[in-house]
């Protein structure tokens, strides 16, 4: 999931108060040798950097914590530096340069700003830092501008949704697709996958194509969904690549008497709980989710550490999209809801829901 919030208005104000937003934190990792050191952790001692283009939401919080957990498994990494770009491209670039100046040997980058980050990635790579961007494509070539790009197959995510819709709506229907900001590559790839599977004309794609723009914002999603409900009396399936962001909209629509259709999305505790609360009274409400991929960052960290410490590199170069919940088949899991935990916990993540909840109260 790429969640990037641009706050251009904030740029000029960095002045003195920006220090209060605590841009860079240093996390000392355990240096004690542990049994069962993973194969990607080599013998060479290094310090490592992790820069996030935007670190300010729960998904990023869990993703960053996943990197910290992964680093703890490797005693060769003596220190992990973390920097949050706060959604500002210039800060994200200077964060990378700062990491190089600190002398890190491995660097994992979430390049939210896309190709604008390429020169900074290249300069880190040329300085001899094992540089691994992940999730957002920043252009360039592996081995020339950085060591490796660890992407994810969003087309596959779209295909998984498509297959599920095909199975559960065999007679066809109207499908509404929701994604983040206009033109985001994740949404575009998911739409490609969806269209590749649902080729039969009995499946009709309604609303703006390739997707309705919600900016992954619950308020915007609410406006978009109410407009769609008013415009299309018959919506048979909805796809969303950030399930939790449409829960407010669904709730408002249910309150006004709308019948929830089948939904294919990505997981989140609030989304699962919405299903649990409503499926008994909503006969058409079926739901499937793919994993929201908080652990994508682990694979990128494994690669960077393996390259810098002389460990064995992982076999996977891309993080897979995998099914998580299916309310119809119950496989791989029925829809999950932990009412005792906050809504923005991701139960598909390797880190337990309880551990994620604690992250936020710290």
């Amino acid at each position, binding site marked *: 999931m790429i969640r990037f*919030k641009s*706050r251009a*208005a*904030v740029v*000029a*104000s*960095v*002045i*003195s*108060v*920006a220090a*209060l*937003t*605590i841009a860079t934190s240093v996390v000392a990792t355990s240096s004690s040798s542990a049994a069962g050191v993973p194969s990607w952790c080599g013998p060479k001692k290094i310090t490592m950097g992790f820069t996030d283009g935007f*670190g*300010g*939401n*729960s998904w*990023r*919080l869990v993703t960053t914590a996943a990197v910290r957990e992964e680093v703890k498994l490797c005693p060769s990494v003596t220190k992990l530096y973390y920097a949050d770009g706060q959604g500002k491209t210039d800060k994200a670039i200077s964060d990378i340069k700062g990491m190089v100046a600190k002398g890190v040997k491995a660097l994992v980058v979430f390049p939210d700003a896309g190709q604008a980050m390429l020169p900074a990635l290249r300069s880190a790579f040329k300085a001899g830092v094992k540089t691994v961007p992940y999730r957002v494509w920043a252009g360039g070539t592996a081995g020339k501008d950085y060591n490796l790009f660890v992407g994810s197959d969003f087309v596959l995510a779209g295909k998984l949704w498509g297959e599920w819709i095909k199975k559960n709506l065999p007679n066809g229907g109207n499908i509404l697709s929701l994604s983040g900001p*206009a033109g985001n590559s994740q949404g575009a790839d998911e739409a490609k996958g969806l269209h590749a599977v649902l080729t039969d004309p009995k499946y009709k794609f309604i*609303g*703006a*194509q390739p997707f309705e*723009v919600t900016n992954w*914002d*619950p*308020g*915007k999603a*609410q*406006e*978009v*969904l*109410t*407009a*769609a*409900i*008013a*415009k299309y009396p018959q919506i048979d399936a909805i796809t969303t690549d950030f399930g*939790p*962001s449409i*829960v*407010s909209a669904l*709730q*408002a*629509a249910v*309150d*006004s008497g*709308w019948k929830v259709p089948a939904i294919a999305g990505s997981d989140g505790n*609030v989304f699962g709980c919405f299903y649990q609360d409503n499926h008994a009274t909503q006969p058409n409400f079926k739901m499937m989710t793919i994993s929201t991929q908080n652990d994508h960052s682990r694979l990128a960290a494994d690669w960077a550490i393996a390259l810098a410490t002389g460990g064995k590199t992982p076999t996977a170069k891309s993080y897979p999209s995998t099914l998580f919940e299916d309310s119809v088949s119950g496989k791989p899991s029925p829809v999950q809801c932990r009412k005792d935990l*906050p*809504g*923005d916990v991701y139960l598909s993540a390797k880190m337990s829901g309880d551990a994620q909840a604690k*992250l*936020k109260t*710290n």
Partner: protein
Amino acid sequence: MSTTQIREVKRSARMQVSRGMKTVLAGVIFLYIASAIFAPTSISRVAQMGMLPFAACLAIVGLGQTLVIQQGGIDLSVAGSVSLFVVIVTWGPDRHDDRLIPAVLAAFAAAIITGLINGALVTKTKLNSIVATLGVNSLLYGVMMALSGGSPRRTTDRLSHFTNNKTFGLQHSVYYGIICAVILTILLKRTVIGRRFEAVGANPRAALATGLKVGRYQIGAYVAAQIFYCIAGVILGGVISQPTAYQGDEFVLPSVAVVVLGGTSLLGGRGFPAASALAALFLKQLDMFVLSLGVPYGVRTIVISISLMLGIALYAVNWKAVRSKFGAKGRELQAA
């Protein structure tokens, strides 16, 4: 001059419907007619019920911005403020109804403190309002992140009922917007303090010469603005059952746009809160209209931009001068 004449003069100054109000009202009526013709689903009950609570929130934020703009300032801390208040009223109670009222009180306390900081920076240190409020905006985001780690909680049921329950078929949030606009209009146009507030905005030097405490009114504008942002934040926290930590981001430019569309001059002086509130309805219905048209996202953005430009041009362009210029050219051509 007789007493009756004086009374008439006063009444005319207070009660006349502003040019901004007439323009926005005409704009809203025109937009609804266009909606009925070109995108009838945008005025259906479902669409209106989805749009109106957000229009109410924007209207309330716009009321706050109106006050600051009346004093010749501009408040760009809207984004940080609304985001922080939403986080306080959702993160604080953490789904427990009994903690809601203390959280709301804490939000209002934070609003007053923020307003005082903004006001003091602008009036006492003479900082430009754009710079001062942008700085405070960063500070507010810092506080919000420190509080919540960027992760607000689900709205409590009590707050949700407070905003989403219906009376006569309309959500309560909509009534709150109307009540705020009415109260502010009465305060500004019908009370001594309101008239003085406008006088200070129109000409601070003259107001100072007449013995008014100019600084207090200016600081008061920033404090009152934050209180309105806080009301909007509380309502937004209820309208959106699972808000993000950045709900205020969407309000910065629209809050200024509704003030300008409502006819309040960016140079300060007289303010038209009711017109600002109506302009919020105009903007949100415009969103709903273009969404319902079913045109691509790029076209939607263009339609909204052109509508805004036209609205603002009504005030920004000196039409009299334009008319006389073209009129003169026309006469020259005829003479030739």
